[in-house]
């Protein structure tokens, strides 16, 4: 099962093989969760959207015709699910007079008590990310640190570094793309 490609796993899942779809979920769970987190900005909302994404994918396995990659198919489902979630949140905030002021935008739920194996995986992953960020060029690394660690806006970074706003965005985009490539080269063994 581990040696099969995504498309082969989908074919097995369409043939009523629950383990095949389970393998798809295991391979793409974190990436889809990251995509949902990137779109929604909240960890709990991202978890719900990720859950809904895989449920929708399982229900629509028969519609997958192999014209696109599985990753793109899952990404599309996740994006649509996140857009639905955002529209629902917008309607809810209007109904309840904006009781959610966005102060919990970056809040995350308390991490459950993981097993030692999962804690070891998390520790290994953070070490990999640390090394990847450290390997970035200085001008790209400082933008990531300002944005993620200091939570500065693009305009504040532009004023601090005295560079144009468009340069800040392009630097951050390049930094994240390079970081993604470095992480792909050193994948963490998911337990």
């Amino acid at each position, binding site marked *: 099962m581990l040696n099969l490609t995504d498309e082969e796993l989908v074919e097995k899942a369409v043939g009523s093989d629950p383990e095949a779809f389970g393998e798809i979920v295991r391979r793409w769970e974190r990436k889809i969760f990251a995509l949902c987190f*990137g779109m929604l900005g909240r960890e709990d909302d991202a978890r719900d959207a990720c859950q809904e994404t895989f449920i929708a994918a399982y229900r629509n396995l028969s519609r997958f015709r192999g014209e696109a990659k599985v990753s793109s198919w899952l990404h599309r489902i996740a994006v649509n699910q996140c857009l639905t979630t955002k529209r629902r949140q917008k309607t809810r905030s209007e109904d309840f007079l904006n009781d959610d002021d966005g102060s919990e935008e970056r809040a995350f739920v308390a991490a459950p008590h993981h097993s030692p194996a999962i804690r070891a995986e998390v520790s290994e992953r*953070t070490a990999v990310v640390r090394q*990847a960020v450290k390997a970035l060029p200085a001008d790209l690394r400082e933008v990531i640190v300002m944005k993620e660690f200091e939570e500065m806006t693009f305009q504040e970074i532009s004023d601090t570094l005295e560079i144009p706003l468009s340069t800040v*965005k392009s630097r951050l985009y390049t930094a994240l793309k390079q970081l993604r490539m470095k992480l792909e080269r050193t994948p963490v063994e998911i337990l």
Partner: protein
Amino acid sequence: MQKHEQKTCPFGDDIVSYMYDEMPTGGQLEFERHLAACEVCTDDFAAVSLARFETYDWKRVEFDPLATPQIVIPYPQQTVTFGERIWAWTSWVTVVPVLATIMMATTVGLIFWTNSREPDISQEQVDPVNVAPPLNKPAAVSVVPKAEVASNSGETDRIPRLEHVVRRVVTKNRPSGPKSQFARRLYPNVRLGNDMAINVTSDIKHAPRLGVRDDEEDDKSLRLADLFDETNPPPQR
């Protein structure tokens, strides 16, 4: 779903703006419509989102549990004397309002203390006060010849000479003053009452002239013209 090159996608640079929620509302809706239809942008967005989440997770695991360090800056200690502390505490900003308050309180206290010590005059017996009547101008000025004064008073032997005829100014309710005392010293034979005064300045002005013989009937003395008047010999004395 569209498939095109990254260079031709006009929304390539907006991925990070949308991801960090720093895109205008109009552009956000347009980008969402494009993202739902563009496979390249969707995959690109997923890749960037994963890199961002890994960074976020790294921060959450390693940095968020760290306690915020307490920054202690070793400022150089300055020795401040006691007088400097007092002066710093009692600056003009403090002293002026305090002094003004003290002055106002003292003034108000004095006013109340003074009012409390004054007797109630409505309860006391007050002696009547004699108020002098207002001064009146002389009701009339009469020029009385001395002979008439003498005839009226019957004191012909003490009548002064003609040139000393004075005008008596009678004033009512006029107290004796310096002018009356001066008149007594000047004319000791004339009795002056408290209600009489003599206007000395008008004596000479109204003195009878020599040619006027209005006292001819009373004057029995010998005249020079009578000695040479043969038709009318002087009376025998």
